[in-house]
């Protein structure tokens, strides 16, 4: 292992050795190492194969911008595409390289490289089509898809990650030099502040390079320590470490994800991720800059690394990837790397700078001469060569002369970009800076402030001036921070995007997107095909569409394109990044709102009774409703429903109807209001009576139904369908508030206040007499469609004589807390009379026999009351009600609309199937014209055969005729079209 003389600054604990597995091989690193830094210690550089050509790839960076070093973490449910450059190691961690087979060293896929000339931009679109269409589906496509993807799919994993919402005044993104200074200047102001940093050690550039020698006469590290302590002590600033801001949405809504298991195995019973949802008034972006690479022949070989990353490995991780790397740069940002290497007692093998001598800082010259490092100014690297690692570097010097250096390591710097990812997410506008050759934030779209290199201000000595200027609005403490640098540098760069190879062959490659294997050749081709806009180019070549979103390369692409088109870069396009900043864990996004908490289960007040009595439940919206009550495990649903239905018709049954919506309406104008909301007229209705009513949309289509009870001219209670409860109340509120504010009327939902039990069957009256001895249930005292309030023990209940089954029955409305009491009473008194509980399926069957509709089953938003034959619900004399006008449009007055009818199979043993269609011909030849479809169908124990309801074209006039119903197996059965009522047409039983 390469140990360093001085690792004072590093955050790696060299006393704590850690072993982990890489491709099955045991590797040693130290506490605090990332996978990448540990591999580099062990001189391992080959970590993966590339996407398209399966070329060997190494560690290119030291951070989240990494395009190459993506690995699979076997020990974490086999998490794919994890960046080796940020993932910390722990004892026993299992890591595998990706996209290679059988092994990293010999990979079959790399055969693709030989065909690489074919794999050019857009090649899919031009190929794989012949000789016959079927070749695509049967041969080509499967091949392409098998080759897809980077990592292998992960293992099943139910994450334990939670959400946390924040409401603050200011969020500072990034706790580097600028972030810490900004926070420091806001200590104990009256702003609530979040200081968020991705790292577990704050300080950013201070930890990552040797640029700064002292801050306010303290060593940089001491300064960070004392500053962080001061911030932590403050009452108004909270620090979030290991937290990456991934998304910057409108109205300063930020999404950040916190890693709670840095450097340890994720635990099964502890929160591993927290998704922070932050709402703030201001955002201060101090998230620094990202270094660019350069395009030259084979610039993807392992052994090539960004200059600042190399320095970061020295300073941050105390490891030296190579003792004598060659350095190639076109700017001053890499000066400090030379200084850092020399600090370690080594020196670069050569320094190659494309800038002409006079542009290079004198301090750098002195340093290089002092340690006589071979210096090439005004020179370029034409290309590198090697197998699984670079071996030779070809240099073209100022005179155009070529020379070759042997080296196994090359550091490159193509300049730096402000990290504008979040800024562009926030919709801020960028400006191209011709001097610094990069896009810089110009016009924020939201209250966003950028500081330091994030704002394109690359001069470290000027940071406190900028902060004092930009944070004035917060009345911050004025800073006078003295920053002394080791390497004098005010950022200076010379244009260089791509170096053409010395000898170009059709196999030679200069990459512009390492992860997606996009070459500069692809860019040229795309342009020659007319894709001259950057967004087009991106899509055609897949440039910067990888998991790194081209963080180190997208600007280079713009540069190359602008040169080719001879346009300014800002005429070619800007870099707009899409959220998230870095791939964001699905588990974190889901948080605790999935799995057992995906959606609440709403329960009736007597839910427990249903469970105890073996009910099988049905999901109706969020409600759990008893579907049927099997006698025992062996009774099928069909048998149970047949039994329950018969029982209700012969004796009695009770249904838990508590989920039905109930709304109390009251006010001076309640009557006129109800007359406007429902089709019916309630004017002539006597207090104490009830009525079945329909509610339409303004389009005239049936939306909901229910029973309206009139307590007085000013006071009503309406029931709604279970699913419609919220919608109906919402609709009433909407019209009361927006259309008829002049009407004095209020409505409250009493759905949850009252349980509802629907008891019906010939024996009902006897049972009710037993349960409520003081109430007279005789026909005269308690006629059909009337209701009464009564005191039951210490609470008030309401009993409504109504029925949905066709049998005489009552609906009992009782406050939820007392519901169980009455339910038990009903059963204890009822069992002698054969009372049973029944579920929704039996209810559906019984009402269908009676021809009562179910909204949403027999209607589908395209059915009017007239279609249903419910004309009697429409108050003829009423001037207005919801949807009235729509009932007289040309299409709604057609007499041949789809209308509700009943159907029975001509051969009684035939089974009708819900959802099947009614057609005229016995034989199906497609496309067959359809009359309509079967909305409900059941096997009736009372009729002894299958029957159904259907909506069919011109149905009302077809009653009495014959037709055919299709069956799931594409056959037909003969049917008869009849009136939609199969049981007690005269309502004798209802009023009995």
């Amino acid at each position, binding site marked *: 292992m390469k140990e360093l003389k001085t690792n004072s600054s590093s955050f790696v604990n060299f006393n704590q050795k850690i072993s982990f597995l890489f491709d099955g091989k045991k590797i040693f690193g130290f506490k605090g190492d990332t996978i990448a830094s540990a591999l580099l210690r062990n001189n391992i550089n080959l970590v993966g194969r590339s996407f398209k050509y399966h070329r060997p790839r190494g560690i290119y960076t030291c951070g989240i911008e990494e395009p190459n070093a993506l690995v699979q973490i076997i020990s974490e449910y086999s998490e794919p595409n994890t960046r080796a450059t940020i993932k910390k190691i722990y004892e026993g961690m299992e890591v595998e390289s990706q996209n290679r087979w059988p092994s990293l060293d010999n990979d079959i896929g790399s055969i693709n490289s030989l065909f690489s000339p074919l794999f050019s931009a857009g090649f899919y679109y031009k190929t794989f089509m012949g000789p016959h269409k079927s070749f695509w589906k049967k041969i080509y496509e499967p091949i392409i898809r098998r080759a897809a993807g980077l990592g292998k799919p992960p293992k099943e994993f139910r994450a334990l990650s939670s959400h946390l919402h924040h409401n603050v005044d200011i969020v500072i993104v990034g706790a580097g030099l600028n972030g810490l200074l900004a926070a420091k200047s806001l200590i104990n102001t009256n702003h609530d502040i979040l200081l968020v940093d991705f790292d577990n050690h704050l300080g950013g550039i201070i930890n990552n390079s040797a640029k700064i020698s002292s801050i306010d006469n303290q060593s940089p590290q001491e300064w960070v320590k004392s500053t962080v302590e001061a911030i932590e002590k403050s009452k108004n600033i909270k620090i979030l470490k290991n937290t990456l801001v991934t998304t910057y949405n409108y109205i300063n809504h930020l999404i950040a994800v916190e890693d709670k298991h840095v450097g340890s195995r994720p635990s099964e019973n502890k929160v591993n991720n927290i998704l922070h949802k932050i709402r703030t008034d201001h955002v201060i972006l101090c998230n620094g800059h990202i270094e660019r690479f350069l395009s030259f022949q084979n610039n993807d070989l392992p052994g090539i690394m960004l200059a600042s990353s190399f320095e970061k490995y020295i300073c941050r991780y105390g490891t030296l990837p190579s003792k004598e790397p060659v350095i190639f740069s076109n700017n001053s940002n890499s000066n400090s790397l030379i200084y850092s290497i020399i600090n370690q007692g080594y020196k670069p093998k050569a320094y190659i700078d494309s800038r002409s001598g006079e542009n290079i800082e004198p301090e750098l010259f002195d340093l290089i001469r002092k340690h006589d490092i071979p210096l090439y100014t005004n020179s370029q690297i034409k290309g590198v060569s090697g197998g699984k690692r670079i071996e030779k570097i070809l240099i073209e010097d100022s005179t155009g002369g070529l020379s070759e250096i042997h080296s196994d390591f090359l550091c490159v710097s193509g300049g730096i970009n402000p990290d504008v990812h979040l800024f562009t997410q926030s919709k801020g506008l960028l400006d191209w800076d011709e001097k610094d050759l990069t896009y810089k934030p110009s016009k924020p*779209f939201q209250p966003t402030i950028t500081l330091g290199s994030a704002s394109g201000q690359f001069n470290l000595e000027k940071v406190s001036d900028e902060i004092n200027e930009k944070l004035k609005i917060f009345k911050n403490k004025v800073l006078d921070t003295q920053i002394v640098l080791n390497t004098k540098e005010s950022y200076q760069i010379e244009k260089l995007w791509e170096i053409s190879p010395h000898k170009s062959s059709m196999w030679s490659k200069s990459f512009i997107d390492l992860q997606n294997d996009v070459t500069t050749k692809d860019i040229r081709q795309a342009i020659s095909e007319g894709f001259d806009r950057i*967004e087009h180019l991106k899509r055609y070549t897949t440039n910067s569409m990888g998991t790194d979103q081209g963080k180190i390369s997208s600007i280079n692409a713009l540069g190359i394109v602008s040169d080719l088109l001879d346009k300014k870069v800002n005429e070619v396009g800007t870099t*707009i990044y*899409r959220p998230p900043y870095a791939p964001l864990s699905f588990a974190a996004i889901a948080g605790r709102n999935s799995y057992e908490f995906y959606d609440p289960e709403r329960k009736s007040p007597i839910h427990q009774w249903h469970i105890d009595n073996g009910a099988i439940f049905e999901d109706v919206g969020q409600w759990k409703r008893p579907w049927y009550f099997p006698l025992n495990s062996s009774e099928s649903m069909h048998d149970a429903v047949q039994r329950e239905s018969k029982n209700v018709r012969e004796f009695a049954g009770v249904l838990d109807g508590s989920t039905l919506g109930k709304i109390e309406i009251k006010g001076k104008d309640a009557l006129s209001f109800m007359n406007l909301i429902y089709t019916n007229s309630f004017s002539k209705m006597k207090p104490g009576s009830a009525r079945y009513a329909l509610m339409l949309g*303004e389009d005239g289509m049936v939306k909901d139904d229910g029973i309206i009870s009139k307590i007085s001219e000013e006071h009503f209670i309406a029931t709604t369908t279970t699913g419609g409860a919220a919608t109906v109340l919402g609709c009433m509120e*909407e019209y009361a508030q927006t259309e008829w504010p002049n009407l004095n009327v209020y409505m409250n939902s009493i759905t949850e206040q009252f349980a509802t039990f629907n008891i019906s069957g010939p024996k009902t009256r006897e049972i009710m007499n037993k349960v409520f001895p003081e109430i007279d249930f005789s026909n005269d005292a308690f006629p059909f469609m009337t209701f009464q309030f009564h005191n039951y023990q210490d609470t008030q209940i309401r009993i409504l004589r109504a029925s949905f089954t066709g049998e005489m029955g009552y609906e009992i409305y009782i406050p939820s807390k007392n519901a169980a009491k009455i339910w038990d009473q009903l059963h204890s008194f009822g069992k002698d009379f054969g009372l049973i509980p029944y579920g929704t399926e039996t209810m559906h069957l019984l009402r269908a026999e009676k021809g009562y509709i179910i909204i949403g089953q027999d209607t589908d938003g395209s059915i009017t009351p007239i279609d249903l034959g419910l004309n009697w619900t429409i108050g003829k004399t009423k001037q207005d009600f919801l949807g*009235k006008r729509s009932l007289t449009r*040309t299409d709604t007055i057609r007499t041949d609309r789809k209308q509700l009818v009943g159907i029975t199979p001509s051969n009684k043993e035939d089974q009708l199937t819900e959802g099947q269609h009614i057609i005229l011909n016995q034989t199906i030849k497609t496309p067959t014209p359809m009359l309509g479809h079967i909305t409900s169908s059941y096997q009736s124990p009372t009729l002894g055969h299958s029957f159904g309801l259907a909506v069919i074209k011109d149905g009302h006039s077809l009653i009495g005729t014959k037709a055919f119903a299709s069956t799931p197996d594409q056959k037909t059965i003969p049917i008869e079209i009849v009136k939609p009522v199969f049981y007690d047409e005269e309502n004798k039983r209802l009023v009995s």
Partner: protein
Amino acid sequence: MLIIECPYCGRRDQSEFSNGGEAHVKRPDGSSEISDREWSEYVFVRSNTKGIFYERWVHSHGCRKWFNCVRDTSTDEILKTYRIDDTRPKLKDFKNLVDTPSGEPELGSGNFTVKK
């Protein structure tokens, strides 16, 4: 996620609200005789303004009150919210921020919004 100022409850997260479409659309009184076309205008046709838009919201998970809102649909910036019975603010009270029907700058990703 927008922040919406409910005239009754104050600034709240958008998740508490439901959008009610265009505001100040008067429902034709049932007594009046109107053509199928006029009626269909009311039922189906709403302005799809790009720019300053008058719309309705209801604080459905709060006070359940309806109110009106002026929002620039090309930036989603909310310029004003007001009670349902308040008079409609004049268009000229707001600076229309859209310079073209589309508004997007001609360069860069389409996933962009108008200059502000």
